[in-house]
């Protein structure tokens, strides 16, 4: 099934990206997580009509995509889920808010158009920044950063287990779907009569697998309270990364940087 296969491929591709040895991948996960959270807060803090402010925040993902040698195309593909929702919410703004705000080359721009565009820009930037985090940080590293932020061990352990087992169960679901679809050619989904047994079988197998997993975890001394330690502590370079990017982002948020650049050339 293409949907299940795509999901499994997407997870393994992100894992491969996160395990590369680039400068950005080597930065401590806590620094990257904190910068990402700060960036998200600053992007969504712009008022709906402040389009240039939101556009100014695009500098951060643009610079880091280059530093991290990441593909914009693959990151933008992730917008297929977010952008339609954001567009649906914003698309009616031009009809409800018709107050003229700006004239660009003789064309009057209304408040509704500005809010719609800034909403879309926010949607794109927030997705790109989350992609930056997950494409340069492994799941284990994110778990260690969450542990350092004192997130309860039960949630961190569970997040790690879901990440590790999702590929296994996606594989099982894919095989079940293929077996079903080969016996019912041309059918779009699972028929009503097989709803319960299809997922019920998968659920029972998952429960049995979980018990085996628990026994193997116990044998290896793995427990809920075991801290997820990253290979090393925060170094001066990690702190510098955090301070420099935080300062740059706050500067972009406070000062009208793009307006000043525009004035230089006008």
């Amino acid at each position, binding site marked *: *099934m293409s949907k*299940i296969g795509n999901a499994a491929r997407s*997870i393994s591709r992100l894992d491969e990206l996160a395990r590369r040895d680039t400068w950005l991948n080597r930065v401590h996960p806590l620094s990257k997580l904190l910068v*990402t959270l700060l960036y998200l*807060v600053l*992007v*969504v*803090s*712009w008022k*709906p009509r*402040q389009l*240039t402010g939101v*556009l100014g925040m695009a500098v951060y993902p*643009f610079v880091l995509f*280059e530093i991290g040698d990441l593909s914009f195309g693959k990151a933008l593909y992730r*917008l297929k*889920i*977010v952008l339609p*929702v*954001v567009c649906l919410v*914003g698309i*009616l703004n031009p009809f*409800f*808010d018709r107050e003229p705000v*700006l004239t660009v080359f003789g064309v009057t721009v209304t408040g509704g158009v*500005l809010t719609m565009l800034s909403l879309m820009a*926010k*949607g794109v930037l*927030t997705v790109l920044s*989350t992609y930056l*985090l*997950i494409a340069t940080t492994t799941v284990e590293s*994110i778990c260690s950063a969450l542990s350092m932020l004192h997130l*309860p061990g*039960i949630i961190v352990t569970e997040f790690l*287990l*879901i990440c590790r*087992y999702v590929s296994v*169960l996606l594989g099982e*679901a894919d095989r079940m779907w293929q077996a079903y679809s080969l016996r019912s050619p041309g059918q779009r*989904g699972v028929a*009503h009569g097989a*709803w*319960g047994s299809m*997922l*019920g079988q*998968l*659920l*029972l197998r998952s429960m049995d697998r*979980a018990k085996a997993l628990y026994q193997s975890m116990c044998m290896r001394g793995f427990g*809920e309270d075991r801290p997820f330690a990253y290979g090393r502590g925060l170094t001066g370079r990690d702190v510098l990364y955090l301070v420099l990017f935080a300062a740059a982002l706050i500067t972009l948020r*406070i000062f*009208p940087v*793009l*307006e*000043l*650049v*525009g004035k230089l*050339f*006008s």
Partner: protein
Amino acid sequence: MHMADALITPATAGVMFAASGIAAGYSIYKVRREHSPEKVPVMGVMGAFVFAAQMINFTIPGTGSSGHLCGGLLLSAVLGPWAGFLTMIGVLLVQCLFFADGGLLALGCNIWNMAFYGCFVGALLIWRNVMKKGASKGRITLASVLGCVVTLQMGAFSVCVETYLSGISALPFGAFLTAMLPIHLAIGLVEGLISAAVLCFIHEARPELLWGVGSGEQAPARLSFGKTLAILAVAAAATGGLLSLAASSLPDGLEWALERVAGTAELPAAGSAYEAAGKIQNATAVLPDYAIPGSESAAGTTVSGLAGALITAVILIGVALALHFFRRRKAGSVEAG
């Protein structure tokens, strides 16, 4: 129903993180009190199961469309509401990080809209009460459909409230609700039927796995006063926080009274003390009402700003192309060497 980061403001995100955090904290306390360490790996694998199961589409008879199961209720019916809630947090975190389905900042909203209602309202209030006289196909179907429909309606309502309070959409609140609620009624019905089919299968194959099922002779205890108080406290914290955000844009009682008496909600402040206080406030305000200090436009968007964006984009693209060029050259020389 996953909310994106772009649809909320930091204030809404903070309030919803706090509300979801309280619910998560109480759930962790309840799970730890059960003293069953094997539950943690079961929760992890079940979270992965929900994720994989939601990838399978089920044909809805007579419509030509398809749907998937309701994760919160199904997890709670097997693991219990507390462990189910914690598992849903993990599922939502994976969906947000790996598939951009929901935002990292909007995680608190998504946990509340999908996990809280699904696990606590759906399982604790609906599933357990329907199942207290024992499980049967009819009761399982009733509890699943009712649970999914009610919790999805509550979740959709919360999405509208959170988006509206964030001031993102110019769409009137009533129109937004009219667009959201009917479609989620249909989705809830389908998800309820799919979840019911799976739970009926489990009831036949391994009935001991279902949570909250009474023997039929002795009904399980109702919610104690303490538990009810805890649920109400969490709901009140979230609702109070959200309503306070809404109230901030409306005149409060004092402002209303001032408007009636003085004709204005703000009285003129004159005198050196007021001026000094005003100067201090202006100097210390980092984000003055979220506007750009020094910007020409009250709207925060100007022609020079847009021109600046264009120029910056051109410069950045030029730098990026140059970097690509040098990177390729370097890679070529390494291969040649």
